[in-house]
């Protein structure tokens, strides 16, 4: 037996030091014990086969008899038990060895657990004992752990655990000790480093669980103690400095096989399963398994495959041993005196890990690398709230002000404008609210659910119009993702995108401008000006979802691309992959984006060469080439039919109106679209962009913006003379120029914003002259643009071609038949005098996404048949209908009686039950209907690619999908920020 010289008083305290290769820290610990104001009555050290001089150091300080040797794989709990056994042997040789559950003696003895890499402050034990004496129900007292060796950064002041097994300390990352935790608090558990535990509780609970050799033993012990009716408290005055050598991987612990993450996760899962209530065990099992898999995916995306492996391996190793868990649960039942519900308040709420996960994702996407061991703010907040007994420490007034709502608003100045734009969207959409599906112009109604989009993308042949084997455009997948996030409600996804396009665009613009604009008001002006563009140009009111989605995506594309050409530093490959990903998503909606990007890159080459930054080119090429790969096989289809690159998501409008007459309005973002604002509303933005060239210190950026503007306008000019075939219809249409015009307007906003940034301060520095009035006038004009635009938007509330419809044009039974049997079709004919239109309805009709698979060929033969039916119907026409797979003929009403009578007289056509005031319908006999899909082709070559032998692009859809999924996964992993590895705790003060 060895007793430190110095104070020895009741209650008796036995210090147990566990040492393993701790020579670096042991001298400090031993010195600290020597200078302690209250010294332990006894001290024993268990050395687990240290390979360094640890044992010698302890022998020198405590004597040979105070050192107990243990094997290298001995866990911390087992080592402590070994040390206590030795002490007991010394103390009472006649009483023999205590066993679990036996009556402990003496009841007021305390055990002080010390790691070899910690060092208590001189008054630590005194403070611990004082806290212990304050409440007889306290079974264990923990210290305020701070960073080694004398840092002020807090490591722990008590600890709890989330339902997913994450250890929560309740501290902000890098939080310094400023006396904010100066009250005694009851917590779930405390760290074993410096833990003072009553010997009686230790014995009742049989100490730390041997199945937790290194990690989570403290949490498990605290949890069990709480269930046994005792409290675990934190003594704020007791400070222990802790090096966390094992956690940080500074030293290898033999029983963790150098995989601390695996050991920690296995311990966490084991702790949760061993201590959870019986009722929630099944749920806990499921949650932990699913959560581990999800985390593993996250680690893979974060480019930490080894950690991902550890995560899965830990989960499998733990849940695959139910016998261990059952045994552990059995032993805990023996010591529990309270219900699980009584200790629930010491845990964070169940949603905490998920919110923290969202925070982490957001943080990663924002490009901030966080500490793996740092605790997010929400966790800290909730963990703080979860503590009981100690009373919440009142925040200082200045701290409250710093975290109050006012502060949050100051930190997010764009919040108010964005909220106003959101409310404005609702006001402006007042004519479009209500039941039914949003449609009109280029916008088709949304399908029944998001899964319809997934199905459309996955299937090889589509039941659309007369049938199609075309490859689905990838924007359908993007819609599928959005629709799935909207709980599978496709209509909601479309409504949000279309009706809230303004705030969505503005939010992105605000974030993106943060990369190159310092002035918050300027960023807000730019965001609002940009956000209003899709409304003012008429892209929304004409239902051009592709342009709208591109408008929402452009700011993110800009944000992703800018680092590629940043003047400072070299762009990373990750930036290139990220840029390519965003470009791919935007290109999926609006392929013209890729063309404009390619032209801009070509024009940027001389600049790169002059600046000696040609090494950026490979990364830029990766960004440009990635969409081609990711969007395959659709991109191959576009290469084969280049005209499709000039279309976008949604219908190709059958517009025959050229922009030639209003070409001068193109720079102002006007195309003559229905519901567009007057051109002069945003003219001042262009004026401001022109005036921006006067600011010399920003001329490079302004020149780049003007280059984009010029390229976009040139694209619009060239395409104004181009025509694209309207899918499924017999004629061409002019190209929708909304995208290049919108890019030009966006570039004008950027040019003006660049010039406005810091302009006020610059003007103030200069002596008064003509520059100030000019700047003031242009600034006032520019400021008026979004204000007037927003006012017009709210007052006029343009609806344009959009509307809501909830009535299928066909009778319900007919629609059901078509929906249930993809081989059946209805020929819907509408007559307006001598003009007749017809459409072939399959399934539930043409829905958003179907537009991408409607064959471009025209149905000339079917048109002739319709003309025959309405002029000189012949009995043979029924057979002709059958060859097109037509099951129903419908004359949309009110149909002319002569037409109805004509079809009535056709043998084989049976009048179908319809509301005669709305439409007249006939059923083509089933025997006459040929279950074939006829696809008419403009050219034999195209026909062959669609109808005959499947081409490389259209065939093997499953293989393509698999390859595409792999490509996207690889791109996502490459673009994702790397997760920080262990030991990346920030620098501490000396």
């Amino acid at each position, binding site marked *: 037996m060895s007793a430190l010289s110095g104070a020895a008083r009741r209650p008796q305290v036995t210090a147990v030091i566990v040492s393993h290769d701790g020579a670096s820290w042991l001298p400090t610990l031993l010195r600290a014990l020597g200078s302690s104001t209250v010294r332990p009555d006894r001290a024993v050290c268990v050395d687990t086969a240290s390979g360094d001089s640890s044992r010698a150091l302890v022998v020198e300080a405590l004597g040979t008899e105070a050192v107990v040797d243990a094997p290298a794989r001995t866990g911390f709990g087992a080592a402590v038990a070994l040390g206590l056994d030795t002490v007991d042997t010394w103390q009472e040789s006649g009483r023999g060895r205590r066993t679990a559950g036996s009556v402990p003696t003496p009841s007021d003895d305390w055990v002080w657990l010390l790691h070899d890499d910690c060092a208590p402050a001189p008054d630590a034990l005194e403070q611990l004992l004082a806290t212990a004496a304050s409440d007889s129900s306290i079974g264990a007292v923990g210290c305020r752990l701070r960073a080694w060796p004398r840092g002020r950064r807090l490591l722990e002041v008590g600890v709890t655990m989330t339902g997913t097994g994450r250890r929560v300390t309740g501290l902000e990352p890098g939080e310094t000790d400023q006396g904010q935790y100066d009250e005694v608090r009851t917590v779930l558990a405390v760290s074993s480093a410096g833990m003072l535990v009553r010997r009686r509780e230790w014995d009742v609970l049989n100490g730390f669980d041997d199945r937790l050799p290194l990690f989570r033993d403290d949490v498990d012990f605290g949890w069990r103690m709480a269930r046994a009716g005792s409290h675990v408290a934190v003594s704020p005055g007791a400070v222990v400095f802790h090096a966390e050598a094992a956690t940080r991987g500074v030293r290898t612990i033999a029983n963790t096989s150098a995989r601390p993450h695996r050991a920690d996760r296995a311990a966490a899962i084991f702790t949760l399963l061993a201590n959870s209530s019986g009722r929630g065990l099944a749920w806990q099992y499921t949650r932990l398994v699913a959560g581990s898999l999800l985390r593993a995916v996250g680690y893979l995306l974060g480019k930490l495959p080894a950690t991902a492996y550890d995560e899965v391996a830990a989960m499998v190793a733990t849940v695959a041993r139910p016998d261990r868990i059952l045994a552990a649960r059995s032993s805990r039942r023996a010591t529990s005196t309270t219900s699980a519900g009584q200790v629930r308040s010491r845990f964070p709420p169940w949603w905490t890990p998920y919110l923290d996960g969202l925070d982490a994702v957001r943080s990663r996407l924002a490009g901030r690398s966080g500490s793996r061991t740092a605790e997010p703010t929400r966790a800290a907040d909730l963990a703080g709230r979860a503590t009981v007994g100690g009373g919440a420490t009142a925040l200082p007034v200045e701290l409250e002000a710093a975290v109050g709502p006012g502060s949050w608003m100051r930190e997010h100045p764009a919040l108010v404008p964005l909220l106003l734009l959101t409310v404005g969207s609702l006001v402006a959409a007042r004519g479009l609210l209500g039941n039914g599906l949003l449609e009109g112009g280029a916008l088709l109604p949304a399908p029944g659910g998001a899964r319809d989009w997934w199905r459309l993308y996955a299937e090889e042949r589509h039941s659309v*119009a007369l049938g199609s084997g075309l490859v689905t455009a990838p924007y359908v997948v993007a819609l599928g993702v959005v629709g799935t996030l909207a709980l599978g409600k496709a209509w909601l996804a479309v409504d949000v995108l279309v009706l809230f396009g303004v705030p969505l665009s503005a939010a992105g613009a605000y974030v993106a401008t943060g990369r190159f604009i310092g002035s918050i008001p300027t960023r807000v002006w730019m965001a609002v000006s940009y956000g209003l563009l899709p409304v003012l140009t008429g892209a929304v009111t004409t239902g051009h979802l592709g342009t709208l989605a591109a408008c929402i995506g452009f700011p993110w594309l800009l944000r992703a691309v800018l680092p590629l050409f940043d003047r400072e530093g070299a762009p990373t490959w990750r930036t290139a992959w990220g840029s390519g990903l965003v470009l791919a998503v935007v290109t999926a909606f609006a392929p013209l984006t890729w063309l404009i990007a390619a032209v801009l890159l070509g024009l940027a080459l001389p600049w790169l060469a002059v600046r000696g930054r040609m090494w950026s080119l490979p990364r830029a090429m990766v960004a440009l080439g990635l969409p081609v790969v990711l969007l395959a096989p659709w991109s191959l289809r576009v290469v084969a039919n280049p005209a499709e690159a000039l279309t976008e998501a949604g219908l190709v409008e*059958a517009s*025959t109106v*050229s922009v*030639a*007459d209003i*070409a*001068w309005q*193109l*720079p102002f973002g006007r195309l003559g679209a229905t519901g567009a604002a007057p051109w002069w509303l945003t003219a001042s933005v262009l004026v401001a962009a*022109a005036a921006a*060239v006067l600011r*010399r210190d920003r*001329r*490079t950026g*302004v*020149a*780049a913006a*003007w280059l984009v*503007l*010029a390229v976009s*306008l*040139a694209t*619009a*000019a*060239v395409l*104004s*003379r181009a*025509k694209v075939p309207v899918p*499924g*219809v*017999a*004629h*061409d*249409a*002019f190209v929708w120029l909304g995208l290049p015009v919108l890019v030009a307007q966006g570039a004008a906003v950027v040019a003006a914003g660049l010039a406005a940034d810091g302009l006020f301060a610059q003007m103030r520095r200069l002596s008064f002259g003509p520059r100030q009035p000019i700047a003031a006038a242009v600034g006032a004009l520019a400021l008026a643009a979004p204000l007037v635009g927003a006012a017009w938007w709210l007052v006029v509330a343009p609806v344009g071609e959009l509307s809501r419809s909830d009535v299928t044009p066909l009778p319900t039974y007919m629609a059901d038949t078509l929906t249930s049997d993809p081989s059946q079709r209805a020929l819907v004919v509408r*007559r307006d005098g*001598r*003009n*007749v239109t*017809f*459409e072939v309805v399959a399934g539930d009709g*043409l829905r958003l996404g179907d*537009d991408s698979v409607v064959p471009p060929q025209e*149905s000339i033969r079917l*048109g*002739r048949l319709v*003309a025959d039916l*309405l*002029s*000189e119907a*012949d009995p043979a026409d029924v057979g002709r209908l059958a060859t097109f797979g037509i099951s129903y003929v419908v004359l949309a009403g009110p149909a002319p*009686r*002569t037409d109805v*009578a*004509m079809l*009535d*007289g*056709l*043998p084989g056509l049976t009048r179908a039950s319809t509301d005669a005031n709305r439409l007249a319908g006939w059923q083509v006999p089933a025997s006459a209907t040929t279950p074939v899909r006829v696809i008419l082709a403009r050219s034999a070559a195209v026909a062959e690619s669609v109808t005959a032998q499947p081409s490389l692009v259209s065939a093997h859809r499953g293989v393509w999908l698999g390859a595409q999924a792999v490509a996207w996964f690889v791109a996502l992993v490459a673009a994702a920020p790397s997760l920080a590895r262990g030991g990346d705790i920030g620098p501490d003060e000396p």
Partner: protein
Amino acid sequence: MSRGATAVVAVAFAASALSVALAGRPSPTLSDPATRSRAVAVSAATLSCPGSPTNRQTGSVFAAAPGMSTEAGSRETGDVKVVRLSPDKQTPIGRLRSRGSTTLPLPPDRMPLSIMGTGGLAAGMTGAEWSHPRAGASGLAATWCQAPAVDWWFNGVRSAVGSTSRLFLSNPTAGVVVVDLAFYGGTGAAGVAGPRGIALAPQSSRSFDISRFAPGLEAGTIRVHAAQGRIVAAVHSSRTVGLRTRGAEWIPAAETPSGDVVVNAALSGAAHCCTVSVTNPGRREALVQLTVLDADGEFAPVGLTNMRIAPETVRTVDLGKVTNGSSAAVHLSSTVPVTASTETDARGVGGDFAVVSTSRGLDDPAVVPVIDGSRLSLSFTNAERATAVVTIAAVDGHGSAVSKQDVNVEGRKVTSWRLRRGSGAAYVVVSVRLGQTLHAVADYVGRAGVSALPVLSGTYTVTRPSVTPVL
């Protein structure tokens, strides 16, 4: 770098201006958005003749194929066949293989007939039938063979004592037809509800005595409406004195009610003209302005200028005194759609009578048959102000013109023309100049009685609509 940026901005300015200029050039043309609406020659036509109304009559069926081309010697393809209306395959009882006409005796089995034309001969194909009582009775009755249609209106129908009217329905189409009937009575009474849902199988016919549905009808109106499919309807009316028939006529089908109608009066100068029946089938009262046109011009008869006609009611007025027996026509302008007919009693011609209903104005050439034993005269009414010119060609049975004459019809007047006796014509082709519209009636006066046929343009073309596929 600032200099380079300035250069870039300058180039961008120039490029933007150039782009706007380029976009502002005249727009290129787009492809034809759709197949344009156009008139094409009829390639197939079917007409249905009601057949002999009673077994006490004899008669003939007439079929003519005037052809599309006006050039002599040109030949049309196809043929015209006259067959019995039956779902079974029938052997033609007459056939035309080139332009011209044929007149065949009505089969003794009284079956309705179909005249079916194909190819070039289908264009303008015309059919008619007429009958006259055997000895001891009087009453020449002629009617057109018609193409199936949705709506049929018959004015001047009588089912009161001394009159017998019979409705003939034929379905020459391949589909089932369902017919609704409606009756409109006179003397201010409300319309008589008619039977609904009369079904006719394909290639079948039925006939009904109108007194079965609407007994006691005096100059009433029948509407035959095909609720499904298309039908051919005809109404035969006869009058008896004691046990002897004293007059018979096929009531000509009237045009769909309209706010502005013209009705010729039959038998110009040879009979007592005439009573006018005006039917208001609508649900609102009609205020009708009546104007009489004759060879001297137009006038408004005193006391008859404005007529009020209650809803679903027929009103009859006597114009005998105001026309003084001259050829005349009635022009009606109404606040609501009305239909009308005139009935002429030929007291001096064996007690027969003739009925003329509103008809569509002539725009395309019309074929008017020549009935043996009767004298054909045509009355043209020009309801417009400008003088119209009508060309009348007498054509023999082989399709060769034997005479041709232009007749001027002054505005707001009625002009008559009479076929020369012994002309050798089998039929007459009446053509009006483009843009002119005339209403005409053919009067037949012979020993067997009198009859009148509204002159109707043949169907030469059909309009194929402009058809556009949409998404």
